[in-house]
């Protein structure tokens, strides 16, 4: 972060992390939207590769990245498989077992492949946003983008309370384990879980009220405009980077829809 002037966060290691939060949020969200409307697989593939390359510049631990890609990838290849057998008319192969047979279609294959690329590219950009930008900055940017304040207030609180709930759950679990809760038969554990979940919610409710009181006591007021979170303007350098990224996305769209493609 150029100086700590804009936000209460420590200086970060990589270029993307140092960029202004507003730029990052806008660019990455736009990127997600753009890649998910691409209809040409080479463009989608290019976007995916770019996303992966950028991700390396963040110096994220590889394990973390792979773990995060697992969910969307697991979903993506399944889309491919299911579309191959359900969409299209050009049969490229048939699988038969017993007296069933399933045709694989070329159109389904192409579409599935395209969708798979789009999913992975979009998820990569979303992931980059979450790894490079504090949630508070994302929400503050959305506020600038005129997303209704009530929604963002609630989002902010949900985000804060998530860790509260996690903490309450962890301590309750510990207290149970200390009294031998680990060795119950499964049905007792299932009932325990329901009981604990209910109690957990109730406890979390009272905790959330206390936390809310703490927020009020330190100047949160709901019916007024919050003071602006970003107190300085976007540095010219970052703005330039943002505009450039925007242009690239625009070019991508133009290539996709306006340029005549031969036979892809």
């Amino acid at each position: 972060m150029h100086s700590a002037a804009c936000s209460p966060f420590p200086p970060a290691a990589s270029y993307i992390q140092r960029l202004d939060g507003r730029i990052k949020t806008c660019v990455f969200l736009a990127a997600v939207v753009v890649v998910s409307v691409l209809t040409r697989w080479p463009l989608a593939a290019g976007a995916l590769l770019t996303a992966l390359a950028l991700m390396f510049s963040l110096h994220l631990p590889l394990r973390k990245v792979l773990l995060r890609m697992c969910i969307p990838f697991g979903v993506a290849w399944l889309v491919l498989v299911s579309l191959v057998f359900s969409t299209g008319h050009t049969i490229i192969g048939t699988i038969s077992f017993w007296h069933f047979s399933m045709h694989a279609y070329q159109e389904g294959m192409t579409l599935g492949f395209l969708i798979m690329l789009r999913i992975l590219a979009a998820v990569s950009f979303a992931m980059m946003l979450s790894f490079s930008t504090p949630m508070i900055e994302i929400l503050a940017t959305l506020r600038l983008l005129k997303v209704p304040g009530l929604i963002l207030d609630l989002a902010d609180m949900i985000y804060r309370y998530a860790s509260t709930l996690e903490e309450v759950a962890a301590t309750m679990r510990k207290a149970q384990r200390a009294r031998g809760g680990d060795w119950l038969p499964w049905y007792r554990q299932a009932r325990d879980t329901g009981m604990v979940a209910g109690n957990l919610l109730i406890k979390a409710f009272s905790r959330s009220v206390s936390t809310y009181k703490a927020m009020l006591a330190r100047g949160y007021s709901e019916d007024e405009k919050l003071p602006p979170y970003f107190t300085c303007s976007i540095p010219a350098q970052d703005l330039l980077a943002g505009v450039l990224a925007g242009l690239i996305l625009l070019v991508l769209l133009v290539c996709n829809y306006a340029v005549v493609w031969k036979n892809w």
Partner: protein
Amino acid sequence: MHIEDGILPPKAWISWYAVTAVFVYAGILEIKKRVKENLYYKPFLAMVGVAVFVISAMHLPVPVTGSCSHPCGTPLAAIVIGPFATSVISLIVLFFQAVFLGHGGITTIGANDFSMGIVGAISGWLCWKLFRHFDSPLWLAAGIAGFVGDVMTYLTSAFELALSLHGHIPLVKQWMIFFAGYGPTQLPLAVAEAIFTAAVLQVMYNRRPDLLPGVSDRKKRPVTLEQVKTEG
């Protein structure tokens, strides 16, 4: 159930956004009114949001649809805070899941909210109201609401997928194929959600009936977390 970015074509996800916006708008109006009545309604809503977030993040991938199975938590939320507020809450939750967990997508928030936060919530809530109207026990009404809300969510989700991706197969057939794809994982999960919803509601009712007004006596009263006289 979360549909990822890139699966639906723009025409589809934009339409789903439009449909969802209507409900969310109604939800916002409702919440604004309640917040005026009770200062501590907001943290209460947020906490319900966290619960939905946690519950609907417990997912299993589903082979056929390119999506995944998980309990929704929205029927429970709808019982506690009403269906319209639930649609707002689950919108937020879906945004967090898309950004944080790579679970669902940004462009598909509208579609996902429609299935989980609107159809799931309203159907669950209707079941709850219906059963409570006939004085069924609390756990039964809540359980049915959980089950129905969960199944309806998946029916809707499968429909959204089929509508955009049915190719040359008839819509209804593709819909059923997608839904059948969810079946093996979703049916047990729906049962689990039913039990869970029932257990949680029962405990809440026993310990903090003030969180669930309108449960003991079916008169409609605004939900208040603490009917403390506050600035609100």
